[in-house]
């Protein structure tokens, strides 16, 4: 890779937006960046070609099968070189007759956050001091205070002099909105329960509606995916998601080579770059091969179930048939395929 190009690309490749902007400034006569790269004095190196082709590839969804194969092979070479091991980038399409759904037993979850860390290990998120990205968040929900002493005896907030609705300022059974950063020695705690959240793979995803470049879309198996190469980092989707599921790579992702999981999917856990959005994909690299997601497998209490919503014999359908279930923010008509259940 030439010196100039390193400058343009950054160590791990950089976002499309970044590239175009910088490339533009290099070619004052507003010749395209392509021309500049093509006239690179040392274009022979494999990596130079790869980055050129990668930066100017189509939106993944519009690619022909051959173009997809090319894109994937390019990436396999680049990643294998970067991480010093054989990296596979899968391009498996959605399986016929499959619609993925998920069910989480909220009664069982002990809040151990093992799913969170297993997801990070599986999906090559950024880790380390500078930028830590986690796709699952586990909220600690307090059960509330119901002791007589805790109640506001007056019933009138003194400072205000008017009653604005009962014991509004110190009601019985105050419940916190949910704590992200809880850190007790041991879980589960006596006075709390836990509510894990991740991408709900909505059937009508608000994030897809707002994406100006249509780089995030719903695949036929119901998984909402992102073509990281076309993400311009505008973060509209982050604002639109009612479930706080999307994360942004503010900096260069930090993924140590020896911890990198080489079994990847183009639309899933392949290494991401600075300036793009990412989120849970129901481990597309695993589930499209028939394997359960990392979080389903790792949960020590077996609170997580997933499977094919179109198959009445699947785990998730059996949960829907026999347990009490609910979805988060069903009022928004997002139709999440992530269900919570109780015995």
């Amino acid at each position, binding site marked *: 890779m030439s010196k100039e190009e390193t400058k343009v690309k950054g160590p791990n490749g950089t976002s499309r937006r970044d590239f175009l902007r910088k490339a533009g400034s290099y070619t004052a006569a507003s010749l395209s960046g392509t021309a500049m790269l093509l006239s690179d004095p040392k274009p022979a190196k494999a990596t130079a070609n790869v980055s050129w082709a990668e930066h100017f590839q189509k939106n993944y969804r519009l690619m022909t099968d051959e173009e997809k194969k090319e894109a994937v092979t390019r990436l396999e070479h680049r990643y294998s070189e970067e991480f010093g091991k054989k990296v596979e980038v899968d391009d498996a399409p959605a399986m016929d007759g499959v619609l993925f759904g998920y069910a989480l037993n909220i009664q069982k979850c002990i809040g151990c956050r093992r799913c969170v860390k297993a997801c990070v290990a599986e999906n090559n998120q950024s880790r380390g001091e500078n930028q830590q990205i*986690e796709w699952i968040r586990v909220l600690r929900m307090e059960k509330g205070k119901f002791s007589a002493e805790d109640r506001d005896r007056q019933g009138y907030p003194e400072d205000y002099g008017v009653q604005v609705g009962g014991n509004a300022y110190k009601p019985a059974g105050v419940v916190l909105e949910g704590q992200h950063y809880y850190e007790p020695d041991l*879980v589960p705690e006596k006075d709390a329960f836990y509510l894990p959240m991740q991408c709900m793979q909505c059937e009508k995803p608000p994030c897809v509606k707002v994406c100006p470049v249509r780089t995030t879309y719903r695949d036929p198996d119901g998984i909402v995916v992102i073509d990281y190469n076309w993400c311009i980092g505008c973060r509209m989707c982050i604002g639109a998601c009612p479930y706080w599921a999307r994360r942004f790579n503010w900096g260069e992702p930090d993924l140590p080579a020896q911890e990198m999981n080489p079994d990847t999917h183009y639309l899933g856990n392949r290494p991401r770059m600075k300036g793009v959005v990412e989120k849970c994909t129901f481990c597309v690299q695993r589930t499209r091969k028939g394997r*359960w997601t990392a979080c389903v497998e790792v949960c020590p209490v077996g609170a997580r179930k997933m499977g094919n919503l179109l198959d009445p014999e699947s785990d998730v359908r059996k949960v829907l048939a026999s347990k009490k279930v609910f979805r988060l923010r069903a009022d928004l008509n997002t139709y999440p395929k992530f269900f919570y259940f109780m015995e």
Partner: protein
Amino acid sequence: MTIYHLFGPVISLCLLAAASVASAAGDTVRKDEKTCFESRKGLSQVRKHEIEPGVMNVKCSPITGGVLFWGDPFDGTIPMGDMPVEADYSHEEAVVKPREPQIDRNKLLTICAMACHNGEYVPYPENKLARPLRMHKDIVPDSMQLKHGKGAIWCLDCHHAVTRTKLIDHYGNEVSFNQSQKLCGKCHGQVYRSWRNGIHGKRIGMWRKGGKKRWWTCTECHNPHDVEQGGRNSGFAQLNPEPAPMLPKGMSNADHERGHGEEHGR
């Protein structure tokens, strides 16, 4: 393991001195740890090893020692074996991790069964009434905590009276420690049904119909002796959680989410 706890003075009885299990429970994880645990700390240990060049059987959390990733979900498993009721596993491959090596890992169970509790040396108990524990308080770590069925369950309701390496079903038939579900299911029918349907308990492997699955059995998650976990009434022993997420840039602590909002109204 086999101890009975009544209110007030503890009158306990030890029939079986096995499974000195609790040792690992409170230990902190060392960096060089060669074993990690799956669900129950101390009683579902796995030893890390390479299954093929560069691929480990498990990846573990450096903080809690819990398994985070199975390189091969079927490593060290055996066929689940016959089940009395038809369910999914009759048409797809179902495997379990044998419990016997975990439970009898120090061979105490086998030795006790042969040397003493063979129906002769220690006489066969005349009845199932609870008696004061005379021996083995030291080697049966759960001995003061037998709490199962609020006192209605007693050692020989589950354990074989003379063949100490076996459990029993309602008819007194031997049940292997590898198939505890056959024993637990005799009372916990509804849970048993959900478990057979795959929606209670844990499974790993292939979600696809017909795909191979490893099933977790009852005692891989629950402690049958202290199943209520004291006053917590939880079914699961407490574990160390993995660390909290990183605070957003510029935020020095998470106090904002710890208050109850009363401050705002004042």
